[in-house]
């Protein structure tokens, strides 16, 4: 089992790389890379099926971006008019908004590049979801945050359960002789679905309570007070430090204050972990493979950032005037580094 954090770092690396370019060829290459790794490395578990859901979501995002570009126009000046839609005259106070009008090839291509960038980012997140169960990440949280983490994960499973309930109850409408499709059907089952979900949550809460969720260990009052002081002081330090960094005159004290704040908050968390007697069962180990997987993602991100600074024209093909994008050679080779996990990650025996 590879450390789930390694998969998240890898896919976030690919995602970061995607934000550095609008070249559709490079973006397609990034998508292909992540898809290949998912196809070879994912295990046969329910959450590994989420990849196709993310693919659909990415496609929807791309389409919506294009529809907006067509319907609302685009600030990109263009000369290649494809079609002229009837324009809706708007009152003067809505100046700057346009409905309908000319649709140019330039604006469409621009919207396509932009949408594809976002879609690639989504697909990379989807890859992380498919490869590493998000709830396994919990095991790596500091002890003081674990219980909150469990609550968050349980809340996340609420949504799939809710969808299953809606489907079941809409089907049950058919048994009453009512149409099982349409918006009215959905509204009608709303209340029973929420009631059912609430009941299940209460049952789960009871079960968790009876299984020792939220047990605390006795800690000396001095430790408790120190924890509170460190956490509060640390958070204040972080706030003040951030303010200092962002304002013009706070350049000198900003960074040290921020660092001190972060350190104090971390120490507070660590001390707070003493209140929780939890132990970990078979924690995921961060081994050489995890370093390689995470490193390959980071390398892709770093190299594309470098390439974007080095040769911005190749990574952002122009739309005015329209030119065919070309594949820049060494950034493309850098993207292929992201394939490394498919060779080093342990495979499931099939």
């Amino acid at each position: 089992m590879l450390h789930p954090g390694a998969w998240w770092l890898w896919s976030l690396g690919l995602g970061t790389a995607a934000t550095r370019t609008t070249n559709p060829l490079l973006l397609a290459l990034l998508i292909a890379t992540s898809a290949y790794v998912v196809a070879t490395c994912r295990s046969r578990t329910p959450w590994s099926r989420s990849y196709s859901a993310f693919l659909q979501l990415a496609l929807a995002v791309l389409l919506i971006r294009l529809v907006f570009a067509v319907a609302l126009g685009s600030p990109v000046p263009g000369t290649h008019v494809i079609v002229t839609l009837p324009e809706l005259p708007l009152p003067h106070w809505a100046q700057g908004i346009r409905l309908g009008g000319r649709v140019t090839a330039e604006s469409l291509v621009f919207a396509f590049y932009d949408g594809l960038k976002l879609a690639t980012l989504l697909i990379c997140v989807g890859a992380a979801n498919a490869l590493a169960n998000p709830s396994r990440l919990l095991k790596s949280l500091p002890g003081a945050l674990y219980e909150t983490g469990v609550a968050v994960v349980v809340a996340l499973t609420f949504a799939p359960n809710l969808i299953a309930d809606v489907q079941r109850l809409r089907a049950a409408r058919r048994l009453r002789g009512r149409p099982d499709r349409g918006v009215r059907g959905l509204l009608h089952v709303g209340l029973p679905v929420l009631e059912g979900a609430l009941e299940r949550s209460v049952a789960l809460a009871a079960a968790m309570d009876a299984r020792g969720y939220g047990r605390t260990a006795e800690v000396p009052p001095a430790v408790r007070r120190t924890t509170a002081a460190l956490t509060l002081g640390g958070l204040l330090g972080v706030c003040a430090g951030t303010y200092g960094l962002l304002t013009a005159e706070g350049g000198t004290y900003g960074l040290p204050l921020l660092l001190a704040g972060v350190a104090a908050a971390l120490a507070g968390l660590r001390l707070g972990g003493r209140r929780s007697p939890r132990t970990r069962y078979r924690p995921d180990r961060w081994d050489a493979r995890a370093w390689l997987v995470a490193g390959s993602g980071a390398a892709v991100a770093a190299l594309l950032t470098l390439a974007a600074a080095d040769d911005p024209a190749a990574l952002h093909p122009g739309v005015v005037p329209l030119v065919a994008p070309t594949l820049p050679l060494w950034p493309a080779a850098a993207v292929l580094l992201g394939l490394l996990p498919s060779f080093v990650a342990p495979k499931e025996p099939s």
Partner: protein
Amino acid sequence: MIRFEDVSVTYDGAAEPAVRGVDFEVPEGELVLLVGPSGVGKSTVLGAVSGLVPHFTGGTLRGRVTVAGRDTRTHKPRELADVVGTVGQDPLSHFVTDTVEDELAYGMESLGLPPDVMRRRVEETLDLLGLAGLRDRPIATLSGGQQQRVAIGSVLTPHPKVLVLDEPTSALDPAAAEEVLAVLQRLVHDLGTTVLMAEHRLERVIQYADQVAVLPAAGAAPLLGTPAGMMAVSPVYPPVVDLGRLADWSPLPLTVRDARRRAGDLRERLAAREAPHRTPPAPSPRPTSTPAPSPSRWRIRRTPSTAPTPALPAEIHALSVRRPQVEALRRVTLTITPGETVALMGRNGAGKSTLLNTLVGLVEPSAGTVRTGGLTPHRTPPRDLVRHVGLVPQEPRDLLYADTVAAECTAADQDAQAAPGTCRALLTDLLPGITDDTHPRDLSEGQRLTLALAVVLTARPPLLLLDEPTRGLDYAAKTRLVGVLRRLAAEGHAIVLATHDVELAAELAHRVVLLAEGEVIADGPTADVVVSSPSFAPQVTKILAPQQWLTVAQVREALA
């Protein structure tokens, strides 16, 4: 180990205590069974042991409950987690993580056990419960019996001294129930765990109990005693005890084995009477408009003399249903005639529910044809379909949307385009005493089932389908349901029940269809199918074999 001292529990807003005068002690290493009709407070008594009552549910607990010397008044449920393990009715609402191994470790992690101890206990528990092959499996992909075993395993790993179980076998098929009970017995015998368990299906569990606590009625004090002694006075009892009471055996037998040893005499007396060999179970006492189908012709009977419509209630031909992972049904062929009651039986996941859902058009067949009353269900508008087929789903609550019984009945009349008051009249007829202003959620399981049944029957469908109708019903509610269904069958309704309850099938069904992995593996008169199967034979059949009696009612009638 568990000690109740004059305990009474009153929930907030309730005028009367839910339980009162509970005063008994469960010694260490015993399996104590808590029995009683539904609604007498069994779950409240169980909840008081783990501290969930009153810490989690609210209400007032008077008296004192101590578990392994700890007073639940001063210890919250989480502080009792190392001595009490609790498994509720629905294992799915018990799971916190998503794989088997993590779930087994979760409780120990909360208690802060060292990693090497956790590792060892997880391996031991995997072996003890026979889960080793499933250790990496996501819990959502397991069968009902496997999930129940994981739920029990997950509370076993912290090595609790006490195990509290609320209806651990009611959702399971007979084989899976045996699996779970075998594990419990091993825990009690080998590890000295104390078990307190509530269960409606006494025929499955009574032989494992060391003592039985009977809650005779709501608010009445429980009685504790030996199983045989308590069964003599209990308002709920399994068929084996019923037969023992009928034959005046003393002490009462609790297992099929005990009863068989005593039954030589009874078998002789019955041999002279007409054995119900190859005939359907006792027909309804009322004169039937449609004669019960004769067993030799059930498959070819196409035109019953008095049937109102020429089309059969259901005709299924070479039906297959494919799901992404599995083939749910494979080339199933089945015909159902008016007035016939058919029991669909088989393991959890054998395709029973899928078959019922196909008949009401919730599932589209991948191949083959389905006709209900001459219509293709998934292409028929729901409004027309309800007049040909009605399904009471596994969770009757899914059918109910309104916030009072009266509103539900009015809506049902509108849905079925029936005369106003039809549904309410049906409901009163089926089960008197349900008031108009009750919220459907506040009804007992049996009442809710009856309300759903009345809603479905408002449209007068010639074919009535019930999915697992006896889950959570006590014997009294079950007897009422049997009476209602017999009457409907006598009026000419065809009834199909998907059930794990062999006793119910023996009481009601003319015909049993066994499913395994989506295929029909047996189809014939009830007596023929269940007698030959060790797991699907009812207790009376096992006791009086080789004679073919199915129910105590048959024996009682023959002796009268």
